[in-house]
C-alpha cells in the first residue's frame, strides 16, 4: 500500500455512524465541549459568594508545602502528624519542594515507617491487624478465583506478589529470632 495524502483506512460515513451509535456527533460542534479549551475566565460561574474565602484557621502545627506562601484557606485535618513517621514527613515538607525527589522519597519512607509501626503497635491492642481479614482474601471462594484468572497476562508476574508482601515479615522474623538466640546463647 503506497503512502498517499489520504487516510489509508477511511472511517464509515456520518450517516452510517449516526444509525449505529446513539448520540453520534451530539458534541461535534466545539461550542458543545464545555471543558475545552481548559481555561475560560468566568469567576461568576462557581457559586462562591466571597472574593476571598474565610480562613479555616492557622494551626502552626499543620505541615505545608514550602511552595505555598501560607497555609491554605481550607485544609484537611484527617490524620495529623505524629511520632517518628511524623518527624520524617515534617522534615520532607519543611526542607524540600515538590520539585525534589527527596521530598517524595522521604514521604514514601514515612509511609513505610508508619505502616510498620502501626502494625506492630496494633498487636498490643484489642484489635490487632489481621492480614487475613484486612486483605479481603477470605472472599476468594465466592469470587470465581480460577475462572477470573484464566488466561490473564498479569499472571506472569503474580508469583512475585507473595514474596514482596510476605517477604519483609519473614525476613524481619528471622532477624528477630537470630537476635533472641544470640542473647540466650551469650547468657548460657
Amino acid at each position, binding site marked *: 500500500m503506497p503512502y498517499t495524502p489520504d487516510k489509508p483506512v477511511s472511517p464509515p460515513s456520518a450517516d452510517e455512524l449516526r444509525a449505529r451509535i446513539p448520540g453520534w456527533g451530539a458534541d461535534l460542534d466545539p461550542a458543545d465541549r464545555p*471543558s475545552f479549551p481548559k481555561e475560560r475566565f468566568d469567576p461568576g460561574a462557581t457559586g462562591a459568594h466571597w472574593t476571598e474565602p474565610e480562613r479555616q484557621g492557622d494551626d502552626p502545627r499543620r505541615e505545608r508545602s514550602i511552595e505555598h506562601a501560607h497555609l491554605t484557606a481550607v485544609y484537611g485535618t484527617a490524620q495529623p502528624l505524629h511520632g517518628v513517621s511524623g518527624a520524617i514527613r515534617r522534615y520532607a515538607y519543611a526542607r524540600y519542594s515538590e520539585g525534589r525527589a527527596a521530598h517524595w522519597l522521604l514521604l514514601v519512607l514515612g509511609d513505610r515507617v508508619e505502616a510498620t509501626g*502501626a502494625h506492630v503497635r496494633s498487636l498490643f491492642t484489642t484489635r490487632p491487624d489481621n492480614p487475613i481479614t484486612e486483605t479481603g482474601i477470605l472472599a476468594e471462594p465466592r469470587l470465581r478465583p480460577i475462572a477470573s484468572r484464566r*488466561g490473564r497476562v498479569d499472571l506472569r508476574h503474580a508469583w512475585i506478589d507473595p514474596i514482596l508482601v510476605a517477604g519483609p515479615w519473614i525476613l524481619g522474623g528471622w532477624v528477630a529470632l537470630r537476635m533472641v538466640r544470640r542473647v540466650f546463647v551469650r547468657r548460657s
Partner: protein
Amino acid sequence: MKAMVYRGPYKVRVEEKPDPRIEHPNDAIVRVELAAICGSDLHLYHGMIPDTRIGHTFGHEFIGRVEAVGSSVQTLKPGDRVMVPFNIFCGTCFFCARGLYSNCHNVNANATALGGIYGYSHTAGGFDGGQAEMVRVPFADVGPTIIPEWLSDDDALMLTDAFATGYFGAQLGDISEGDTVVVFGAGPVGLAAARSSWLMGAGRVIVIDHLDYRLAKAREFAFAETHNFAHHDDVVVLLKKLTGHLGADVAIDAVGAEADGNLTQHITSAKLKLQGGSPIALNWAIDGVRKGGNISVMGAYGPLFSAVKFGDALNKGLTLRMNQAPVKRQWPRLFEHIRAGLISPGDMITHRIPLDAIAEGYHMFSSKLDDCIKPVIVPGA
C-alpha cells in the same frame, strides 16, 4: 460513625471514628448513601501515593444527604440530596476563576501540583473520604449540586468522577469528525472515554485491554472495536496495522500508574514504588498514535518520575493534554445527554457491597475478580 480505614499496603478495615465536624463556615456534613471504589483508589490501597497515612478514609466518588451546614452556607440545607464532585475547590482563586476546579490553590496545603481530593492521601490535602457513613464537604456552596429528581442515583454517582473524567478525556483528545480514537484501558474511565468519543464525532473507536470481560463491556457499552493485547506480540504494530500503518489520530490513556504488560515497569512501579507509575499505556499511546496526533492522559500517576518516551513524542510532533477532570464543568452537558437518553453512566456498575465488606471489595476490584468493573459501597446496607 463507621468508616473504611487504611491500615497499610493491601490492608483496609472498617473502624468506628468520630463523626466529621464543621471546621469552616462553608462546610457541610453529608451522610453518604452511595460511594464508589475508583481505580485510582487502588494506587492508595497498594501504597503507591506518598503520604497516605494509617487511618485515612478513602473515597472521592459519593452521593448523599446533607446532615448539617456551616453558618455561611446558602444553597444547601439539611435533608437535601447532593452529588459531590471529587474535586474540593474554593471557587475564587486564580485557577477556579478560570474553570480549573481540579487545580484549586486554596484547598491543598500539602502540595501545589495537585488540588484537593476527598480521601486521597495528604498529598491531596488530607481530607477523609466518602467510603464512610459521613463526610466533611468543604465549600458546600461551590462543589455539590442537588441531585435533579429525574436523575438516577447510579447515574449521579458515576458523574462524580468516572464518567465525567472519561468524557473530559475525550474532550482533551480534541477529536475531529472521522478521527480514529484508541483508548487504552477498559475500566470505567476508558469505557466512558470510548462512549464519549462517538458523541464528539469519532469515526472509529478502538479499545485495548487484557481482560476479556472488560473488552466485552467496551463492545456493548461503548460500541468499540476491541483488542486484547495479551494476544498480540506488539501493541504498537497492531495499531499500525489497524490504521493502514498511519497510527490512530487520538489516543486516550485511561490506565495510569498500574499498567500491566511489562515486567520491568511493573516491578519498579507497582511493586518497588520507585516510579510515579508505570507509563506502559502512555508509551503505547505515544508510539501508537500518528505523527501530529493528540494524546489525552486520564490515568492517574503519582508525583515521582515515570519513564515516559518523550523523545518519540517530540519527534512525532504530538500534542499531550492532561489534567484531573474538573468534573462539575461537564455536568450541564452530561445532564442533557442523560435526559435525552443518549448515555446511561450507571450501567458501568457491576457490584454493590455493604461497608462492612470493604476489605473484600478492595480485594475483588484490585485482583479483577468476578468480572468486576465498578464496585459501589452502600454504607446504610
